């Protein structure tokens, strides 16, 4: 299905795309058809910097299960960082 569901968040950091590293300004998160992954629907994240054009993008397409595992890993990694660092 075309879920159309799209969340957009401002992000601060860097990503490495087809032309090398660039500063990131936003991420769009959506659950929809992938371009490449072999699943009908995937959790897709586009890390972007629209100021540098549409090709300034790092894309991932994850199965729902692996996206949840990734989200949990991010949370637990941040939680276990030394106090005051994260």
């Amino acid at each position: 299905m075309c879920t159309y569901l799209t969340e957009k968040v401002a992000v601060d950091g860097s990503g490495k795309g087809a032309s090398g590293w660039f500063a990131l300004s936003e991420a769009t998160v959506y659950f929809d058809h992938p371009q490449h992954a072999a699943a009908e629907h995937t959790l897709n994240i586009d890390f972007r910097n629209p100021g540098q054009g549409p090709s300034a993008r790092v894309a991932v397409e994850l199965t729902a299960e692996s996206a949840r595992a990734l989200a949990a890993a991010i949370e637990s990694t941040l939680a276990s960082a030394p106090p005051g660092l994260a």
Partner: protein
Amino acid sequence: MYDAMMAETINIAGHGGDRIEAYLARPLGPGPFGGVVVIHHMPGYDEGTKEITRKFAAHGYTAICPNLYTREAPGASPDDAAAAARALGGVPDERLVGDVLGAVTFLRAQLNSNGKAGTIGYCSGGRQSFLAACSLPLDAAVDCYGAFIVGTPPEGIALKVGPIVHLAKDLSCPLLGLFGEDDKHPSPDQVAELEKALAAAGKMFEFHSYEGAGHGFFSVDRPAYRPEAAKDGWQKIWDFYGRYLAN
């Protein structure tokens, strides 16, 4: 039968006279040929959609697929362009109608045109095919599993699409609808509601819903592909366009 064809990227005048990219596939015979505007799905102006455009030319139609994301991402790869368009809220309805009008005008102006033009769209393009057929004078339209003709998308999403079933009274041509029974967007109930609205408005339409098929069953390079539904769906398209576009 002489069956040579040609396919190439061109520019046409879209909404507001904007120069937009389009993929044109045309038979090289003398014609006259009917014209088809192929409206790409949300993942964009990609290889699969270009293949579909060429398929229409191989079947004797001049076909053109406008790149609806030209403005957001000129020259970008289709997936980057689709991501940029999604982040910006998608294609506004008014602009879509203007871009399809540009494509239809181009088709009807060809020397070997029979003067007829229709649309076909997949996924978000299915909704847009219906929208175009309710907004422009066309000869035939095909809606392949277009979501949100009926039904309101969840609140808080970035994309600006709303229901357009109320436009059924303005439908300018016969409509062929091809759907999957397992689809949730549009669900069988939503397809039934559209059918009811078209019948109430006295419009010509034919709908087919395929068992065991969901959204995107025509997509040969995706797990959603359902060969039986797709083969029968293509036959329905050839019959339908044969009646309303070919002669």
